């Protein structure tokens, strides 16, 4: 491992000449990247078919078979490289890094579980853990509940699709954009001035005497951050659950109506049990999003005022404190938390394929 510098790298990107119009520069890089990719598939197939195992001459039959044995791997190679290098290898490398310390001047030394014990001794880590647990409970629960509510309510009304589309919209907005949007909602002015944040305006309207800077209220500010993610994820839950609700056989509902069940009984006793697996899928998918959530906390509070979460804690350790050991250890904690879902998913997928 040579010395690694983080900034001012001499090794440049494909093209970077200052002065070229950014639009032209962009188009050029796009053209190179995409044509390189198309080129690989076309040329490698040509190579196998025409040069390595040509389907003519005395060995034509054998050659076709051989070409067909190689081709799947030709098709798979770039994808497997991408998966292997960008997702599988980092898991093991991160594990290794979490067990080593960087030595000044380059190189690593074995550190055993030191990084982990150092991390466990930090109050900021436990704060991140506590907050992450809160996020893991509140965000999937609220997103799924709201999603189910909207899916059910909009199911039978004429403008339901418009309503769904509007509630689904935040899905397209970046976490950073959403952070700006909600920072305006939470904005606070002194109580004698006109409020420009909706939340404080409502608070004052209903008789509040002083305004709050919501994002600095310890403990509760976590919920104000979570609302942003719930706002984004509800649309996702709604789309999936709405499709599941429509898939419920009508006879079961008709039978319940004939038996005199009221609408709430139909919903909770007939419909919800039938879409239980879908609810689980939605819940776990949002759980994974929550574990990765970084941008919202980074942009809105940066972990101040006791709002730290694991992903941001890790970013802090790796790129601000430059402590790769503890940073990797916290990344492993995130990995550990997704592992049950990973196993569950793989098991389900295998069951489905058989």
């Amino acid at each position, binding site marked *: 491992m040579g010395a690694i510098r983080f900034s001012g790298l001499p090794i440049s990107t*494909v093209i970077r000449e200052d002065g070229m119009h950014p639009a032209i520069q962009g188009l050029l890089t796009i053209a190179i990247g995409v044509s390189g990719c198309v080129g690989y598939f076309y040329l490698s197939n040509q190579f196998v078919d025409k040069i390595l195992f040509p389907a003519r001459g005395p060995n034509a039959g054998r050659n076709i078979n051989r070409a067909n044995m190689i081709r799947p791997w030709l098709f798979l190679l770039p994808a497997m490289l991408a998966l292997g*290098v960008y997702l599988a290898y980092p898991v093991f490398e*991160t594990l290794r890094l979490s067990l080593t310390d960087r030595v000044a001047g380059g190189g690593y030394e074995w550190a055993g579980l030191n990084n982990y014990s150092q991390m466990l001794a930090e109050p900021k880590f436990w704060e991140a853990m506590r907050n992450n647990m809160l996020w893991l409970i509140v965000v999937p629960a609220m997103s799924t509940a709201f999603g189910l509510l909207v899916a059910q309510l909009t199911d039978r009304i004429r403008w339901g699709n418009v309503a769904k589309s509007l509630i689904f919209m935040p899905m397209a907005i*970046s976490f950073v954009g959403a952070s700006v949007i909600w920072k305006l909602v939470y904005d606070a002015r002194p109580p004698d001035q*006109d409020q420009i944040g909706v939340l404080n305006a409502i608070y004052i309207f209903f008789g509040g005497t002083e305004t709050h800077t919501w994002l600095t209220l310890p403990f509760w500010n976590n919920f104000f951050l979570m609302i942003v993610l719930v706002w984004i994820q509800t649309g996702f839950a709604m789309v999936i659950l709405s499709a599941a609700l429509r898939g419920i056989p009508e006879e079961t509902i008709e039978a319940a109506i004939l038996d005199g069940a009221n609408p709430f009984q139909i919903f909770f006793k007939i419909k919800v049990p039938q879409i239980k697996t879908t609810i689980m899928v939605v819940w776990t998918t949002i759980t994974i999003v929550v574990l990765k959530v970084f941008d919202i906390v980074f942009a809105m509070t940066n972990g101040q005022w006791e709002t730290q979460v694991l992903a941001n804690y890790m970013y802090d350790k790796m*790129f601000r404190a430059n402590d790769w050991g503890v940073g990797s250890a916290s990344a492993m904690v995130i990995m550990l938390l997704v592992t049950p879902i990973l196993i569950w998913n793989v098991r389900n997928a295998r069951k489905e394929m058989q």
Partner: protein
Amino acid sequence: MSDIAGTRPALRWVVHASVVLLVVLWVFPTLGLLISSFRTGDQIASSGWWRALFPSEQNLTLRAAPPETQVLQDGLYVIEGNVFDGERASDITRWGVNSRAIDAYAPGETAELRRGGTITVQANGDYRMENTEEFAGKRGPRVFVTTTLPPEFTFENYAHVLFNQSSSDSMGKAFFNTLTVTIPATIIPILVAAFAAYALAWMDFPGRALLIAAVVGLLVVPLQLALIPLLKLHLNIGIGKGYLGVWLAHTGFGMPLAIYLLRNYMAGLPRDLIENARVDGATEFQIFTKLILPLSFPALASFAIFQFLWTWNDLLVAKVFLIDSSGQTTVMTNRIVELLGTRGGNWEILATAAFVSIAVPLAVFFTMQKYLVRGLLAGSVK
């Protein structure tokens, strides 16, 4: 068949009302930022954005013309003019001449001036001062008016944020940088994944089931784990920080979902179609490009939208693999975070910058929603 909505009229109204409430709750935050981006900094700071839609009542302090403009008419000294003096004219509802009673008079009424004489102000701002003696002093008397201003919006913020290259608030370069990241980072994974998905769906080879299981497993691996190992790798093999690195990273991180979505879709295509093509002597490459790719268009579109939204909106991957200390390759999300730090109170800049970045994904969302929904339904692991 009847349902919760539809059994009883009262319940029906409750349903409509709750949906309206939910929609309002979900749309309001975005609407607030959109409206704010069309207001000047002063307007944003002085009143909530929800007031911007309605005419607003404002108290203005204006001044009548100075005494030197007076003329002698029929033995009276007269000064005439308009209090708005060419500024934005609007209807006056109340007016006054004393700062302690700024709404003492209605338009058309006549007030006594403290330093002698009278003044009459009309609703449109025209005034007439009369005095039997000469008006003295250097400056004209102050006139306090209460007016209702119509809603006013401006495009200046957008001009400033988009086209003012010299300004530190400029998003123009970041916009192109984001585009440069996004387009190859969307197209390359689709190409790579489509070939792999076809192999996994329709070709027979040892280890296929294992590979599919691996893809499903990698679907949930948090990309946080990949940051340091891959940055190290990029630096060691000479890619460094730059577009190539960020494309490769996005390709890798998007790959499991791409393969998963596309394989599921391709596996559902009719078997006869592919067998027939094989019997007719088409090569696998031909089958793939001429048959499978066109037929898989809906799945390709679904994934393309996901990947586009994800790469356009991404902050973390760009921060780690692209943005170096020169700041030449910054992307929009990163610019916005920087602005949040330096321009935290300048909502006109923040709102506009955020909306420049949000506008493109929103346009994609509303035009391609069908494919997005379809992709979501296919993509959630059942």
